[in-house]
């Protein structure tokens, strides 16, 4: 187990290093001149050049990358080209909002996804199952920004029940977290239903029923636990997708998270911020995948730490 853990943990810095090189090269391959964007359309060429020098973009690629890497190792992700503020601080300010929103959405998605998935499997073939699966397909297919705009217009503008935007209070979480939860909840529900259906026809479930266990014990203790392995893997993968979805949700709801910061950074060719956010996101995805690996091993000893 220790060597497995060591191997997995060793992979983290290698992945981050490769990602940093990839993203550092990729953003510089984007067409467009950040110095001109910074100086503005009305600036003369001399001003554009002094801004370029100040930002260090007149240096060769290797020097820029080495400088970036050295600073990153000290926790300094450089300064935002747009605001001139330290990227690490900008991300640190925004990250709690994104984590809070994605955690809330993910909890809702897991709660509803698992519940509805199990119920749909139990009541397979009934109107309830059909209605749930049609809703799940719709939930996974409809663009979440469209749902968001409709919900905002109805619940916030017309009825005034919930705040329209921002993250000022707990009520601000209601609309964005529900919107963001919709697609992963649908995927988890479908996954759970499929996985449960496979399990509940197994012999050991019949045995469990035969020995007189309550339906709750049969479904939750015996069936669900075994059905969870593919579901947990899917949940792990969905978390990464959820971080991507947060970019759109945060923009629509004016949520002050990392997703919105990323959109602005791309718009203004803010290389330093794009690099910083990508690295931090990759770090989170790698850590979550590690946790999923361990969770799967915990749930199914047969595939533990191979």
């Amino acid at each position, binding site marked *: 187990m220790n060597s497995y853990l060591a191997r997995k943990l060793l992979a983290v810095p290698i992945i981050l290093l490769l990602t940093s090189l990839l993203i550092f090269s990729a953003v510089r391959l*984007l*067409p*467009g*001149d950040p110095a*001109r*964007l*910074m*100086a*503005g*359309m*009305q*600036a*003369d*060429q*001399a*001003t*554009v050049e*002094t*801004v370029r*020098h*100040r930002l260090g973009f007149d240096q060769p690629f290797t020097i820029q990358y080495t400088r970036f890497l050295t600073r990153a190792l000290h926790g300094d992700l450089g300064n935002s080209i*747009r*605001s*001139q*503020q330290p990227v690490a601080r*900008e991300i640190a*300010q*925004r990250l709690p909002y994104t984590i809070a929103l994605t955690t809330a959405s993910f909890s809702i998605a897991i709660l509803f996804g698992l*519940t*509805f998935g199990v*119920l749909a499997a139990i009541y397979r073939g009934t109107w309830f199952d059909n209605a749930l699966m049609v809703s799940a397909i719709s939930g996974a297919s409809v663009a979440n920004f469209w749902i968001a*705009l409709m919900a*905002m*217009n109805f619940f*916030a*503008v017309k009825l*005034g*029940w*919930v*705040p*329209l*935007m*921002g*993250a000022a209070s*707990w*009520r601000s979480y*209601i609309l964005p977290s529900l919107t963001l939860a919709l697609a992963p909840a649908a995927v988890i529900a479908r996954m759970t239903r499929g996985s449960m259906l496979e399990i509940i026809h197994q012999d050991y479930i019949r045995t469990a029923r035969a020995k007189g266990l309550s339906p709750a014990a049969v479904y939750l203790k015996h069936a669900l636990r075994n059905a969870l392995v593919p579901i947990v893997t899917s949940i792990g993968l969905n978390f990464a997708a959820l971080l991507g979805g947060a970019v759109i949700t945060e*923009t*629509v*709801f*004016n949520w*002050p*998270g990392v997703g*919105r*910061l990323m*959109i*602005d950074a791309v*718009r*203004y*060719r803010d290389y330093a911020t794009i690099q910083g956010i990508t690295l931090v996101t990759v770090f989170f995805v790698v850590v979550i995948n590690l946790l999923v690996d361990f969770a799967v091993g915990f749930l199914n000893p047969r595939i533990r730490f191979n």
Partner: protein
Amino acid sequence: MPRLCFAFLLLALLGCRPLTHPKDELIIMQTEAPRTMDPADHTETYTTAVLNPIYESLTCFDQQLNIVPQLATQWHSSPDGITWTVNLRPGVRFHDGTPFNAQSVIATFNRLLDTKRGLAGASNVRRAVLSVEASNPLTVIFHLKAPFAAFPHLLAITSIISPAADHDGALSLHPVGTGPYRFAEWKTGEYVREVRNENYWGRMPAPAEIKWMWTTEPALMNMAIQAGEVDAVNPLPPMFADALQHNTKIRLLKGKSSAVFWVALNTHYKPLSDVRVRRALNYATDRINLVRSQLRNYGQPAAGPLGPATADYSPDIQGYPFDLAKAQSLMNQAGYSNGFPMNIAVLENQANFAEALQAMWSKIHVQVTIQKLESGTFAQVIFGSPEQKAAAHTDSVLASWSSASLDAERQLGPLYRTRSWSPAGANLGFYSNPHLDTLLDSAAADLDPITQQATYKQAQQIISDDAPQVLLFYSMDLAALRRDISDLWLFPGGDLELAK
């Protein structure tokens, strides 16, 4: 399960209370986040709007767009227009307690002139000012590089900073000016909060606080003003203006714009080097239709190169009325009766204008290919040199120009002077007319407003006749306010300002 849904809904409802904000707080939502809190390190309209309540300049514009005193009490120039003496307002202090005097003015201008600092908003001052000195604590003398009659306009867009606050880039986070509001908080990604400066030297504004928010989502702006979560949204996309006009709780604010939209024609591209072809494109452009269909009439067809809000704008320039027969006849005379192909480089969000032109110009057989570019690439492409543009087939560029200082020189000089050919300036089509260059130089130096206006009128007519661009329209600045909000006005170019 239905019980679960009901419980969730109930939970949501229980937490609800009227979603309002304190009335002494003014909330303004814009389309862009502020770039910085340093007034000298940006050139963005919506960053200027955020910093305007905090900073003041030596002169300023009133709502009739006249230059009036602000931190200066009076000013005059030497007869040659090259030395300007400015008397400063006594008894004014910055928010950090530093007294406002000649030293603060010198510090403000010297940091702009210091090329090592590479401040993004320094271009205008660097082009005009040679040096600044004090003759006494409340008098400064500006030495200019060349005579510049519109110098008081330049003073109106240069915010005076507290020299004590300008250390180690501190101003980019914590602005310190003399204005009616003090900086309170900048929560990145959320808002900037400003509180009333109780020691302000001028008329005290009504709201105790101003909160600036931003979104890139136009639909959100529209919903936010309707839901009452913000008091003002700026700029309001024209597509929402008609609907909001009928909302009794909201009023629209329409401003005379200084922005002129045009297609700069690359005069080094063979067909476009012929003035008859350039005029033909102008005649083939149905501006009234363009304004109606693309701007929902929130704009005005452009006839001359200056917008109505700019000083020395001449309403007498006739421009080119829509006349397809005349356009075709000019194309025939130039030997292009079957048209020619040309590219238009345009920002993605303005591609609709290029598409309308594509349809209009196809009637004189000009085959337009649209190059939709996002802002980073666009800036790089349009500021290419003649050689770069020839290689990239950048035959024309659809863009706009708006001078924040509202003077004719800052609007015409960078666009039409020979020495302003890109990348040095924004003469994007490499137009050159030595006679116009001379006229612009003499108008810029002319301290007599009457002869200056006559010269600028002549210059506008020459530009119109030479047709280096297809002038399209003057946009209208548009904002929406809750009906109970007063004391806000739209400065040409689009920043929402507090009435002083």
